[in-house]
């Protein structure tokens, strides 16, 4: 099964196995990872699953929908060019090995 890596603000990294069908957010919450709140449960309505995607992976991400784009404007930690909502990134085999950094704050 594809696995992904979350890097905490303090530099500590955490590798998480995914089910092959779920989003990066779902994998994180299922493993009890700190730093992803996902208050809306993955409905692209809360912006508390914000991540910074490692530059080398940007091209392999799904396109950003308008609602995700609008939500990213209101994230608690600053929006950067590589900001995404982890609930909108499904971890398919092509995204095996994805690396994302967690922001300082989600609310």
């Amino acid at each position, binding site marked *: 099964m594809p696995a992904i890596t979350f890097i905490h603000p303090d530099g500590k990294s955490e590798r998480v196995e995914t089910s092959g069908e779920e989003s990066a957010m779902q994998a994180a919450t299922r493993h009890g990872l700190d730093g992803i709140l996902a208050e809306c449960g*993955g409905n692209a309505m809360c912006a508390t699953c914000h991540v910074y995607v490692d530059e080398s992976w940007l091209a392999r991400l799904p396109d950003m929908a308008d609602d995700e784009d609008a939500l990213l404007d209101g994230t608690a930690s600053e929006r950067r060019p590589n900001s995404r909502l982890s609930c909108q990134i499904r971890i398919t085999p092509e995204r095996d090995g994805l690396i994302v950094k967690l922001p300082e704050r989600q609310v």
Partner: protein
Amino acid sequence: MTASGTPASTGPASVPHLDVDPFDMRFFADPYPAHQRLREAGPVVYLDKWNVYGVARYAEVHAVLNDPATFCSSRGVGLSDFKKETPWRPPSLILEADPPAHTRTRAVLSKVLSPTAMKQVRDRFAAAAEERVDALLDKRSFDAIADLAEAYPLSIFPDALGLKPEGREHLIPYASVVFNAFGPPNELRQQAIARSAPHQAYVAEQCQRDNLAPGGFGACIHARVDDGEITATEAPLLVRSLLSAGLDTTVNGIGAAVYCLARFPDQWQRLRDDPTLARNAFEEAVRFESPVQTFFRTTTREVELSGATIGEGEKVLMFLAAANRDPRRWDRPDSYDITRRTSGHVGFGSGIHMCVGQLVARLEGEVMLTALARRVAKIEITGEPKRRFNNTLRGLDSLPVTITPA
């Protein structure tokens, strides 16, 4: 969940029939044993009292919420089928709409109530929470519903909307009508609608552009008319959605949180020790008490759901509160635990209709519980809590408490 060609003859006959009336006073007084019966009877049940299907397990509630093409909202999210009965008021353009109409109106309210918009009101909401707690510390003994759960949202939300000061006493009664009206034609609903005329007149008037202060949520909705996103006749109805759903819900949400923290002193102590848990303590109260207990959908076609075949045009009642305590989904579902991972609860719904005001609700809950945790050492219940009865909302009518300053 998926379509199937099974004949309709397996319909209501193949699912367990229950005599539970989820809109009866005895049910409201203690819904938990009945919720358990509903969950354990099967993934889909049939309620003979009102001739509706019911789902009370997490998986099926979540599935129904996330298949709006099959389980539609435009025929009403209460018992009444808008295809067969005239709605008691003009239908909501968002709650009682399906895509593509819903998509357009939803985009407008999502923008007006976005995370960016919350940053603009956060300091004001937090200062008002501090002020409210100051006033309560002067009193020491008070009714946590009237003086806290109602007084706090009333002190910020109508202003945030941009409402005039006059007539605000209609707001909670209007919302109470709206949420009673989703229920069956029982006494609660009939009486609520019979007395609704003055509240409806007030609300219709306040939704007009001229009556909404610049900069408020209401004016922001009307501003979308100018960029052509919605029409001038749609705007007042979208403002009405915030008047209907934005106040009484948070009253019951904050009331639920205070009631939980007063009942479970160990959780109160954890919050005192770490006030950053306030936001999750509120969220967990929304899961635990589910201020919005139920909503309906109507099937647009014959559908098979977890082995049960449901015909076209059937009402399906979703027990959000029962799903939020389904042991199939939650560890120790009947414990209020402020450190629980609450993500995925359906207290705000799920899918395309998931509460568009959820960020407002969480902000109010967070800043109020933070203010309490910082300033109050102890909350004691000093008298019998009284329940308020409504066909959809669950909450208290009064909760006598005494607080001790920190």
